[in-house]
């Protein structure tokens, strides 16, 4: 039983990453712009972005927050709910109290326990004011009548009450309290990181029951993507990054000499971080800088390491394929050409001995909306063979990351 529960939790974990598909933001209702609540709604919209809600709740392929996005887990599917103010299918009937209870304890209207796909263990830290501002913003949207499909889970995972035990173990249900002795900036950063951005949900390793472990921000793997070590460790974490690099990465999804954000992180930037004010970005950086170093996870690449051209047969095959399909954007020397987001140099994923994120972008592609338009890479599995993709990954890590990773073709098996 425990084994199965763990499996389930791992599945849940995978979607805690939240963000795998593009979704655009719903627009606020302009007619409210002059009302008394306008300021609050605007604030709510900002917080809504900081909390990255749209990534999960936008309709698949669309912009309305009608939910419906499927989280496919090994034991069934969970669907994101409609968070427009429609009374029947959305959140239109939520009172403020019910709203706060839902965000904090994971208990929805009518006493339904939410599954922790919804990061309420982070949102619980939000202040009443902020939580209700988000609600005000959502209530300013056009109500859309759209019932998401019913969850399809098998027993015992369809038993919402089992969440009581999980919450008891893992949900602190506390508000964020500023730490005295820390600067206001640090406290703002901590609040943004912990309560809204729910960064720990991806970047902190999990315990056996899928709660957050004590190794905060030491990095972990979520649904095949590596969420890197964010602690101040100079070799494994962010210790070697400059403030400028960090700010740029958070605000735009790229940093000179550090490669681009991809996959879930790209989506976190796209839906949330790029809307943050420079002050808030700086505050997050200040907070991240304070995280105690933990020497875990792949070592950070200090610079582009271009090795001699051809080593193994696999690498030379990888190079041959790289110049066909990859160099158009990344350049044969990995410096990028079409945009700064195509620069591979220094990307953490190139020194990951498992090359996880590299494998993921080759499999699934990645996309990021930036101020200069959308940057993207398509997935390549449909036409390149598993051996070819493995050869590309092996070549790229060896050639640009200086690591000797023999990526196995089987990781590209669909």
């Amino acid at each position, binding site marked *: 039983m425990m084994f199965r529960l763990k499996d389930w939790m791992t599945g849940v974990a995978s979607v805690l990453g939240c963000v795998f598909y593009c979704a655009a933001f719903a627009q606020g209702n302009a007619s409210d712009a002059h009302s008394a609540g306008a300021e609050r709604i605007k604030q709510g919209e900002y917080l809504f972005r900081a909390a990255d809600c749209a990534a999960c709740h936008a309709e698949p392929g669309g912009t309305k927050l009608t939910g419906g996005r499927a989280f496919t887990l090994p034991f069934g599917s969970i669907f994101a709910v409609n968070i427009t103010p429609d009374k029947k299918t959305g959140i239109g009937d939520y009172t403020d109290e019910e709203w706060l209870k839902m965000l904090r304890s994971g208990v929805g209207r009518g006493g339904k326990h939410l599954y922790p796909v919804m990061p309420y263990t982070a949102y619980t830290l939000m202040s009443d004011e902020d939580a209700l501002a988000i609600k005000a913003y959502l209530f300013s949207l056009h109500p859309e009548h759209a019932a998401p499909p019913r969850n399809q889970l098998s027993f015992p995972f369809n038993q919402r009450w089992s969440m009581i035990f999980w919450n008891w173990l893992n949900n602190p249900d506390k508000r964020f309290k500023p730490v005295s002795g820390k600067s206001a900036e640090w406290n703002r950063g901590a609040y943004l990181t912990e309560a809204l951005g729910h960064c720990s949900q991806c970047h902190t390793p999990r315990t056996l029951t899928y709660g957050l472990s004590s190794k905060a921000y030491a990095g972990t793997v979520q649904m095949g993507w590596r969420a890197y070590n964010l602690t101040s460790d100079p070799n494994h974490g962010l210790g070697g990054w400059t403030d400028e690099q960090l700010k740029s990465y958070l605000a735009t999804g790229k940093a000179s000499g550090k490669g681009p954000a991809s996959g879930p992180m790209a989506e976190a930037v796209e839906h949330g971080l790029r809307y943050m004010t420079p002050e808030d970005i700086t505050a997050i950086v200040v907070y991240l800088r304070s995280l105690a170093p933990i020497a875990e996870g792949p070592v950070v690449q200090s610079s582009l390491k271009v090795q001699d051209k051809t080593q193994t047969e696999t690498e030379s095959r990888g190079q041959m394929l790289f110049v*066909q399909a990859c*160099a158009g*954007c990344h350049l044969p020397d990995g410096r990028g*050409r*079409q*945009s700064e987001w195509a620069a591979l140099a220094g990307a953490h994923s190139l020194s990951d001995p498992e090359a996880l994120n590299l494998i993921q972008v080759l499999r699934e592609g990645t996309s990021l909306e930036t101020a200069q338009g959308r940057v*993207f890479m398509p997935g390549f599995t449909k036409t390149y063979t598993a051996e070819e993709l493995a050869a590309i990954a092996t070549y790229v890590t060896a050639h640009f990351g200086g690591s000797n990773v023999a990526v196995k073709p089987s990781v590209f098996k669909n």
Partner: protein
Amino acid sequence: MSFDLHINGAAQTVDVPSDMPLLWVLRDILGLTGTKYGCGVAQCGACTVHLDGAPVRSCLLTVAAAAGHHITTIEAIEQTEAGAKVQQAWLDEEVIQCGYCQSGQIMAVTALLQNNPHPTDADIDDAMAGNICRCGTYVRIRKAIHRAASQDA
């Protein structure tokens, strides 16, 4: 937004969205239709132009990123020594079939020869594999590159 571009030696000002790829600025705003649209995702090379002498895929290069740099397109490549040599070799080897990819091919080769006047087959592989020719002129492209490279001034 307004952008100042240096295209084929002339200054041009265009008023376009900042995320507009250079490809469409060239084709639809400036009427330089020699640069082709083939894929829009940097997979085919038909849109290749030179940005400060380096080959770039104009379909993904935003006008904002191109502004302030020197851009050369197929229409002016004959004014470069390497470009003229490549064009001549292309005719002498009768490389071209439908021709749709060939602006991009010629731009890629010219950049190659400007950096590496005597490329090996391996150099040619690396420089040219990003340019698709659906008509399959590859055998002749390779031959023509060697011919152009052998015709030093």
